[in-house]
């Protein structure tokens, strides 16, 4: 059995990428070709209206979640690799993290 992951993983990724590329090229052969005149086809889709000049997206209220995301990502991997640790350590760590959420739930305004 070939189970050497470090060589097999790139091989399989290359294989899948080649297959995707083959589908892409084959689709290019198969597809209908548009005429020279593109017109409205090359403009972004906007339901028949003129597209707005700029798109504004308000991300401010999600900033706190983004910061929490960075912290909690570490927690998930710490838990995943701590199975051989003495049981009280991961428990204690989980308690601390739970308190971090509780703090936000109590003090957070826009939840």
């Amino acid at each position, binding site marked *: *059995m*070939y*189970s050497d*992951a*470090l060589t*097999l993983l790139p091989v*399989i*990724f290359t*294989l*899948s*990428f080649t*297959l*995707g590329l083959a*589908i*892409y090229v084959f*689709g*290019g052969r*198969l*597809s*209908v*070709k*548009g005429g020279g005149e593109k017109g409205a*086809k*090359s*403009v*972004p*889709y*906007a*339901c028949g209206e003129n*597209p707005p000049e700029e*798109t504004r*997206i308000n*991300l401010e*209220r*999600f900033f706190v*979640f*983004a910061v*929490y*995301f960075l912290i*909690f*990502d570490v*927690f*998930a*991997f710490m*838990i*995943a*690799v*701590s*199975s*051989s640790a003495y*049981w*009280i350590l*991961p*428990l204690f760590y*989980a*308690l601390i993290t*739970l308190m971090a*959420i509780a703090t936000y739930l109590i003090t957070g305004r*826009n*939840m």
Partner: protein
Amino acid sequence: MQSMLAFALQLLIFPGIIFLLFMAFFFEWIDRKVVARIQNRYGPLYTGMSGILQPLADFIKLLSKEDLMPESADKMIFTLTPLLSFSLVLTALFLFPMASSRAIISFEGDLVFLIFVLTLTILNSALAGYGSASPYSIIGGVRSALQMIGYEIPLAISLAGPAFSAESLSISGIVEWQASRGLWMILLQPLGFIVSTACLLAELEMIPFDIPEAETEIVAGWMTEFSGRKLALFRVSKDLKMLLASSLLASLYLGGAQPLGLAPPIIVFLAKSIFMLLLMSLLRALFARFRIDQMISGMWKYLIPLAILQVMLVCLGVGRIK
């Protein structure tokens, strides 16, 4: 030489690429048919036996359509993202044990690799929305990245639960642990199962969490500008992701590919993952879409504490078998 050939066949045909692609189309058919029947529609009907070939026919139809690219789009991102999303998901599917109790690729830590790939596909779709430079696409891409902030953490924590119990970070290792103990992880960690199902629904952008491609608000979200062969690749990669999510749940929580009586592992595995798919389709048909802020704060308010509670219960020894 003989084993080389057998291995190449394994890679390309049986639990490999061709099998996975056909299963992906089959899973899309099941999903569409079940949702249609729940909503009192017929669903796919004409192509093949009760429409079973409809996803394949859709794929071929999309390949034969004209491939348009908006003038303002970033050419490289626009071309590369469909290919990447297809090949990433297809690679991740090789990590699951299907035909035997060991996967084609299995190493200590492939669960972490799987989470990494799932994150990459979402970043890829955010990039696709950004690269197509249309207002709808950009909003869809930003929403899909925002949604990831919500569900990525509970998913990772709840998937760490089985790894913690089985003391193995490999999917094959967790499946073998369940086979040797003779019980399923869902009995030991029901909370983790609920949390990861909800998060995988969000990962798949299925209905309660289909915010990034909300049809009624932003056309097709980050996929708006894609057409022809690029859209075909995105559609296939979404089907493959559906297969990936249901096999993830089936492997980690339902015992995965174990022989059961006379049935070979592949049949048992497919039965379990189709059952998981039916569960997800049912949820998709039952719910309505959340708003983005409801979704994110709900994830942080309810699902993350639940996932941490599950981990703490496992630490305390509830449902932990040596």
